[in-house]
């Protein structure tokens, strides 16, 4: 038998399949009548805003001094009070000595602003981050309660996990917003974060439970036989070992959470998905925007995967 396995034919096959899929997609797109407008997309990441600069009183224009691409316009009021407004050179609307009334536009100043895609991404990120922290705490407590000897704790944890896992997240978000939000007068952000945290928390709890139960009983016995309390044993012996084992499924859960956070757009939180929808209503660039939005989610989740991969290698030293 040939011991050396050749890999290049399979690599070639992979490339051929990928090219085939790309070509097929391309062909299908060409068949329909769609005007691609990629040029319209960048402005939704960042754009140059034009802010009108107005005269705050009735008066006249004093000196206009050019300063690179900007003009410094001195405005003089009837009481000889002076203010200076800086505007972009090509947007200057007045000339020296001109009489102006209060509120007249002198020109426009330009500055870079974050577009809806960037702001939406930011919302998605902080929403997911806060939900993750709460979910981790909730899941940790519930997961430990699930393996507790106390029947009350175990029962509460089980009911929570079953209720959350047995209902769709979308419905939970609606309940959180329309029912709990109304009853307790909560803002939409609190409802969104709460629903996401409760949802992910139930799954984290199951992961933690499996992790804790996966640590051999001898570890607990050894720690307890040294006189350590149940709490110390959990904190110093069981959880550090369990954490290492559950890191991959836990990171998967948090990646899911980032993706699931797109559902909060239904209660009008302007996350990445909602921003995408809003941009489409004004540009009709449906294909481009959704592809970009997907790529942005993919970017965030793959960065997180890489981070976890790095952590796993760091934690593997004692294996």
């Amino acid at each position, binding site marked *: 038998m040939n011991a050396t396995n050749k890999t290049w034919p399979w690599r070639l096959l992979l490339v051929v399949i990928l090219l085939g899929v790309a070509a097929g997609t391309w062909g299908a797109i060409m068949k329909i009548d769609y005007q691609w407008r990629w040029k319209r997309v960048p402005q939704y990441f960042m754009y140059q805003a034009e802010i009108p600069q107005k005269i705050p009183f009735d008066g006249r224009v004093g000196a206009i001094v050019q300063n690179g691409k900007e003009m410094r316009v001195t405005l003089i009021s009837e009481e000889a009070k002076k203010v200076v407004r800086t505007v972009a050179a090509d947007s200057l609307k007045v000339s020296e000595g001109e009489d102006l009334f209060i509120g007249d536009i002198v020109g426009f100043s330009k500055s870079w602003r974050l577009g809806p895609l960037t702001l939406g991404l930011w919302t998605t990120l902080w929403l997911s981050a806060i939900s993750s922290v709460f979910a981790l705490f909730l899941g940790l407590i519930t997961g430990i309660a699930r393996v507790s000897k106390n029947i009350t704790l175990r029962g509460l944890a089980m009911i929570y996990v079953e209720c959350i896992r047995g209902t769709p997240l979308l419905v939970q978000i609606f309940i959180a917003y329309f029912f709990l939000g109304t009853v307790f007068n909560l803002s939409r952000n609190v409802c969104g974060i709460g629903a996401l945290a409760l949802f992910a928390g139930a799954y984290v709890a199951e992961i933690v439970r499996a992790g804790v139960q996966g640590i*051999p009983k001898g570890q607990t*016995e*050894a720690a*307890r036989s040294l006189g*350590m309390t149940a709490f*110390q044993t959990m904190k110093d012996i069981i959880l550090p070992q369990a954490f290492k084992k559950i890191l991959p499924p836990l990171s998967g859960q948090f990646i899911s959470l980032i993706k699931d956070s797109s559902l909060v757009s239904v209660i009008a939180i302007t996350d990445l998905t909602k921003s995408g929808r809003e941009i489409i209503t004004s540009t009709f660039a449906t294909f481009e925007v959704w592809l970009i939005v997907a790529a942005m989610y993919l970017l965030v989740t793959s960065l997180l995967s890489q981070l976890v991969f790095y952590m796993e290698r760091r934690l593997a030293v*004692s294996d």
Partner: protein
Amino acid sequence: MIKAKNVVKIFSGRSGVVRAVDGVSTEVARGEVVVVIGPSGSGKSTFLRCINGLETFTEGHIIIDGVDLADKKTNINKVRAEVGMVFQQFNLFPHKTVLENLTLAQIRVRKRSRKEAEDNALMLLKKVGISEKATEYPSRLSGGQQQRVAIARALAMDPKVMLFDEPTSALDPEMVGEVLDVMKQLAREGMTMIVVTHEMGFAREVADRVIFMDEGRVVEVGTPEHFFTNPREERAKLFLKQVL
């Protein structure tokens, strides 16, 4: 030192009720080395685990240094700190280095400073002959080395009694000797020890007293010479014939 009075441990499972320990009474004096032998399933390990509260017993009393384990007010953690335990499967903490394995409980339970705990740990590692492995993780050690670390870990708490639950049963044959040597040294130093083992050579050489258990009961008690040369009970004779 240790007084067991009519200890009963009942496991109730689906297949019925098992009296794993069935009315065991014994006393262990300070500095005494007691070896418990018997066929598997005779309840010797369960009895040993009752002594440091890893198993709660159903009836009877175990009194260690005047503290009754059956008393609800007894702080079991305080008792355990005085009773060292060595397991068949070593049960070292795999995520901590050898040194950390030895210092953790000293710092958490005995409230020693890190420096004090480390000095004590290094002294003990030297004693069991593996001071050069202090910074390694347990997975890098052989079975015999791991078990010696486990003994050092238990000793680091300065226990009054050491319990050994078949400490050499999970070891490769060539590593049994190094662990038994450490145990022999401990016995010579006057440590109170209760050892569950199948090592008859060790029992013969080190034990002050041999307890033979079968079906949860103490069948025969005696000095090693008496037990190994001239046992009274039929069950003990049968067992010795099979193992010797």
